[in-house]
């Protein structure tokens, strides 16, 4: 499938800031399931900084914006050719040992309820267990925007029984780690088709490590594994660690953020 992305993030400051520094994970991952046709990231007034591929295989790009500025626009445009690999992250070069992803963080820490949920399913092998855990999370947390926020933890989302893709991913990571399956947070894009289901174009899901297959994606928010509708950008322990854009402004102004994302199937 050929997907085009137009993703604009606008940061607005209530007074001029001296400078802005950002770190981006905005480049599609290099693996067998996706091939970049063209891809461009622009930052208004930005100076392109250092770039490197980190141990998890993500392309990380630094940017600095010299002030004074009252707004910064980050625009991502590109086209990616995707293939359905049933969630398997085949051919992805990375060096971080999977065991590293057994460590929990604040949003992915399991409380008693998450532990109980994690132990509520049984399966003959790791892959089946991973599917069962993902289904359990889908059942336990209904998709509903607006009830949770950026800092909601997996435990809080489970208690609410509602949340968005970030909460589903955090919860799946938490229950997977309880069952000793390395798990991580993945950020990317999702092509919103016309089937009437709720979708988030700037999307997030989880990957679980299955010894026989390697990393496998699970998207409990959509009860599926990533297929040709997904574009993968980067990963981390949790949403903050995997964030496509991390930034900070010097100058102590109040920041507002405005995001628009369009993911479309390209015309053949």
């Amino acid at each position, binding site marked *: 499938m050929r997907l085009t992305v137009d993703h604009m993030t606008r940061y607005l400051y209530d007074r001029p800031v001296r*400078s802005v*520094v*950002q*770190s981006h994970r905005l480049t599609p991952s290099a693996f067998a399931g996706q091939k970049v046709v063209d891809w461009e990231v622009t930052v208004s007034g930005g*100076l*392109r*900084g*250092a*770039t*490197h*591929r*980190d*141990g*998890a295989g993500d392309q*990380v*790009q*630094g940017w*600095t914006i*010299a002030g004074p500025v009252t707004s910064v626009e980050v625009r991502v445009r590109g086209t990616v050719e995707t293939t359905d690999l049933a969630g398997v992250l085949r051919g992805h070069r990375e*060096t*971080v*040992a999977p*065991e*590293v992803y*057994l*460590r929990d963080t604040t949003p992915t820490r399991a409380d008693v309820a998450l532990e109980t949920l994690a132990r509520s399913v049984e399966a003959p092998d790791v892959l089946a267990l991973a599917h069962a855990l993902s289904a359990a999370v889908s059942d336990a947390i209904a998709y509903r925007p607006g009830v949770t926020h950026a800092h909601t933890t997996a435990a809080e989302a489970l208690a609410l029984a509602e949340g968005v893709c970030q909460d589903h991913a955090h919860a799946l990571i938490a229950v997977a780690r309880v069952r000793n399956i390395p798990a991580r947070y993945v950020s990317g894009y999702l092509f919103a088709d016309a089937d009437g289901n709720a979708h988030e174009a700037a999307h997030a899901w989880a990957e679980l490590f299955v010894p026989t297959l390697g990393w496998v994606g699970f998207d409990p928010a959509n009860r599926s594994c990533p297929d040709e509708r997904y574009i993968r950008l980067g990963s981390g*322990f949790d949403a*903050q660690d995997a964030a496509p854009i*991390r*930034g*900070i402004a*010097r100058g102590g102004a109040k920041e507002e953020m405005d995001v628009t994302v369009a993911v479309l199937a390209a015309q053949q």
Partner: protein
Amino acid sequence: MAQFNEMYQGTEVRAPYGRLQDWVAAMPQELRSLKQAEAEALFRRIGITFAVYGEGGDPDRLIPFDMFPRVFAAAEWARLEKGIKQRARALNAFLVDVYGRGEIIRAGRIPGRLVYQNEAYEKAVVGFVPPKGVYSHIVGIDIVRTGPDQFYVLEDNCRTPSGVSYMLESREIMMRMFPVLFRENRIEPVDGYSEKLRRTLASVAPKKCKGEPTVVILTPGHFNSAYYEHSLLADLMGVELVEGQDLFVDGEYCYMRTTEGPRRVDVIYRRIDDAYLDPLCFRPDSMLGIPGLMDVYRSGGVTICSAPGAGVADDKAIYTYVPDMVRFYLGEEPILQNVPTWQCGKTEDLAYVLEKLPELVVKEVHGSGGYGMLVGPKSSREEVERFRAKIVEDPGNYIAQPTLALSTVPTFVEEGVAPRHVDLRPYCLVGDRIELVPGGLTRVALKEGSLVVNSSQGGGVKDTWVLAE
């Protein structure tokens, strides 16, 4: 328990201390009090009032200085030096390995869990090899002695070991107060440390740096307990002492604000923890760090010393495996021994520890500074039982060691001169070569019989002499 006295063997004086016998005998009580007061005044005047890193406590408290020096013969030091350098090489080889292919884990020599799930293991630097393959540029190795030839490593400090200013100032003050001692004894100088440190830091400048590297010391600020040391080292090396707000990232490099405009920085000797280095990579609420620094670092625009992630090598659970690292990476037998250590997280070790608890020293895996530890033989039954409950609750959080008969060195006390227990922290420098100044920080437990040398627990410091051949 037989304790090795570094000066006296019965009534005999051991050779390195030969000349100190007359010195102390010829010092009347009044002169001693006078000199002690003078030493304290000197320490106060220069403002050296910090606690050794991680020990907490009142940062403005003066650490007691004891005028009786601790002395090593040339031959004793030669062996120590070999052992320290060997250990520093192995620790750095380990760090490069665990952020690379992890051969030591694949070979089954160290459990992956201890490394990969360790809080000090930084995912952000996996796959990155710092310049010259060095992660820990200043390795502080805490050593105790139990006999003429018996030395044990208590712990390794691979992040930012402090206390070296005490080594430098103790020497300075001793030379000022007792110049005759330095004429009578051939004592190796330690004042070359700052130049060696500067050279070490400059030697790991990133490839992108052309010409003479600009080195800075990054301090969390004047409220930090080791701020004096940060400023002293900056002064001695002739480099800038900066705080996070003095540095900024622009494009592919890191710069320092100066009155003549921005100046590119090549090497940062940081005295702040990994978590605070860069809010875009680690803790987003850090006000001490430099946004974007890690992206510059990872792409080879600046060197950070010690390298982020170095802490995984000095964890107390990893410590047990350092002798294996020496064998695995260097193909050598370790010169310095570890203290035998039981991991309470292992079932069989735990059973032994609980049985022998009143005889053992028990420490928290991530603790430091002599807090949260049990010295069995020095504790009441109640204290032992209270600690037993803590261990049972979370065994993986504790390690246990036998109570070592630490060596003693004569020390000035209220009643005159008496033996007190000591340890030693030498500072090994690792860059394009490995260097060690002859000496280190000798800490002394001033309380009679006490084995805890931490300044927060009533410890003091001594000048440490290494005699020339």
